[in-house]
């Protein structure tokens, strides 16, 4: 099937257009999403196409944006709401965790909340401690919420379409550093049900599990490692919940060495829980201690030049991967 090379941003825009064309119940609201087209330009042109009834700006009122989205979804609409920065999820945390995620469960499973909350996360451009956070880790135990983190334009498009079609609330974390990233997107994307990890590269010496902005870095690392004779498998879980442990565990069982990487801080980050799940259930398959390569344990300064000390780099992955490949027992195979 034919495909085009487009940006992550354009892919998201296409997903919104196609789903709004497909389903009249879909609408988009958020700060500056209408005429301005979104501060990250994801919704450019949408208001012109669908009119102000379906694409409109909101006041600076994040509890209304999320809570209003929950209410509209309960009424039968399919709202897509935008949090300008994922950091503002903290302003609407009650609406996300106590309302969107729990409404079905605590009301006897008689209603659906088909809401998509889009939010731009991650470090980019010197935006400082309150506009640079990565948030996936807060949603490990949001059992009634799906949390997705696409890493490529193709995933951005197909996953956003799947999220809009899903009957559960979805927190859709877009990474700011990826908006300009270009990649192949099929003319007609498959809309797979939510919840499969993607194995982007096969390998035999170690498994690198990478989320969001770190996926591309992990792939580069795998290429560099290949030159050194180290064969790395790269898996992108593509989100937090549901987590495709089958794919991940299968790789760990085959290989026995695992490195987990993401952009947010190490401590309390996404990797910790995943590593705990791995060691708890397949300790004996591990040939070496699992490794984490993640953000520095501090806040993100607003000084752009300091950002590079926060985010994990190719070199960090390479160093950890080399060490991992060299330590521990030799393969049981």
């Amino acid at each position, binding site marked *: 099937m034919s495909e085009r090379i487009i940006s992550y941003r354009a892919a998201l825009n296409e997903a919104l257009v196609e789903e709004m064309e497909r389903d009249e*119940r879909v*609408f988009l609201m958020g700060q500056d999403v209408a005429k301005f087209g979104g501060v990250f330009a994801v919704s450019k042109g949408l208001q012109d196409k669908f009119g102000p*009834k*379906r694409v409109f700006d*909101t*006041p600076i*009122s*994040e*509890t*209304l944006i*999320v*809570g*209003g*989205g*929950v*209410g*509209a*979804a*309960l*009424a*039968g*609409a399919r*709202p897509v709401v935008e949090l300008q920065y994922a950091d503002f999820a903290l302003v609407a945390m*009650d*609406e996300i965790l*106590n*309302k969107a995620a729990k*409404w*079905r*469960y*605590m*009301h*006897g*499973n*008689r*209603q*659906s909340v088909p809401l998509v909350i889009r939010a731009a996360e991650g470090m980019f451009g010197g935006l400082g401690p309150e506009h640079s956070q990565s948030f996936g880790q807060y949603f490990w135990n949001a*059992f*009634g919420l*799906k949390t997705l983190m696409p890493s490529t334009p193709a995933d951005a498009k197909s996953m956003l379409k799947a999220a809009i079609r*899903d*009957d*559960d609330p979805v927190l859709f974390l877009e990474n700011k550093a990826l908006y300009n990233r270009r990649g192949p997107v099929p003319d007609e994307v498959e809309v797979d049900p939510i919840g499969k990890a993607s194995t982007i590269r096969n390998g035999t010496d170690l498994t690198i599990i990478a989320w969001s902005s770190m996926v591309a870095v992990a792939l580069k690392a795998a290429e560099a490692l290949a030159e050194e004779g180290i064969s790395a498998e790269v898996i992108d879980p593509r989100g937090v919940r549901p987590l495709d442990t089958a794919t991940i565990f299968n790789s760990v069982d085959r290989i026995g060495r695992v490195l987990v990487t993401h952009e947010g801080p190490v401590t309390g980050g996404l990797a910790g829980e995943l590593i705990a799940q791995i060691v708890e259930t397949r300790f004996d398959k591990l040939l070496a201690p699992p490794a984490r390569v993640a953000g520095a344990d501090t806040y993100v300064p607003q000084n752009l030049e300091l950002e590079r000390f926060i985010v994990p780099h190719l070199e960090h992955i390479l160093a950890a991967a080399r060490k991992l490949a060299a330590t521990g027992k030799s393969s049981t195979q």
Partner: protein
Amino acid sequence: MEMTVDQLLHAFRIMERSILAEQRLLRFIEAGDSRVLLHSGRGQEAIGIGACAALRDDDMLFYSHRGVAQILAKGILLDELIGDFLGRIGGATGGLGAGIVHAVDPKFGVMGSSGTLGGGFVLSAGAALGAAKLGDDRVSIHLFGEGSANRGTFHEAANAAALWKLPMIWLCENNGYSVSVPHREATCIEDVAQRAQAYDMPSAIVDGQDVEAVYGAVKEAVERARSGCGPTLIEAKTFRIRGHYEGDPQNYRSKDEIAAAKLKDPQILVQERLAARGVGEDRLEAIRQEERAHLEAAVATAMSHAKAGEAQIYQGLLAGDMS
């Protein structure tokens, strides 16, 4: 605004139903058959009942934690309510036992309740927004206490609802207390309705003990909402006859105050109104009998279902679990 005799009789019936249901629940609690937290709505019943009389079945209700009368008036089946009290799988929440706080019935537009107070402001605005976007003429209504009106969600939702002229009604049950904190120690304005001025939103103040007064104010607000003229804030002045929760020592108010509240029982007023309209005591007594029988039947139905068990605790987390 006057209700028809039939409407008044129905209001009387629902009031009887909810008073009986709460009484029964208290007995369950005393007997140890139910261990739920009850926030009794005794004294405030006229508000939910008057409001629902002005609504269609498909209008959407976000009720408060003091909501037995509110949801019964909107249509929740008594056996499902009792089922929740008793943690039975036939209850509205399938025995998760959320009981009065979380019963839902989409058929009657009973949408649910937010345990974190103030959540209902943004949810009810959102439901009104959803209706508007879908192009139908449902209205959304939210009942809440005056204390909850101090949450920031009030402001965010009121502003958007007024701006977008959403078909929404907010009905405040001002019973003068937030747990132990008197209204005048939680805000410096006397009337919650005054808050509407900040959004150019129409408002009204009514006697919350008078089912007809509430009905009239809500009816007017419904007409405004349905015709695209936006939201209304109604404040019903009322009294909480019992404690904040069952077991509340009520060390923060006097016995006299409680006794005075009892004199304002909405049940007395609705009976007087019916008498004035020529309805005889025999008719009321017949309804009382019916409702007692209704309650016993509901209890029996509820009891006929199994208790919820470990299997239930994972049910309904996601849509795949939709029953």
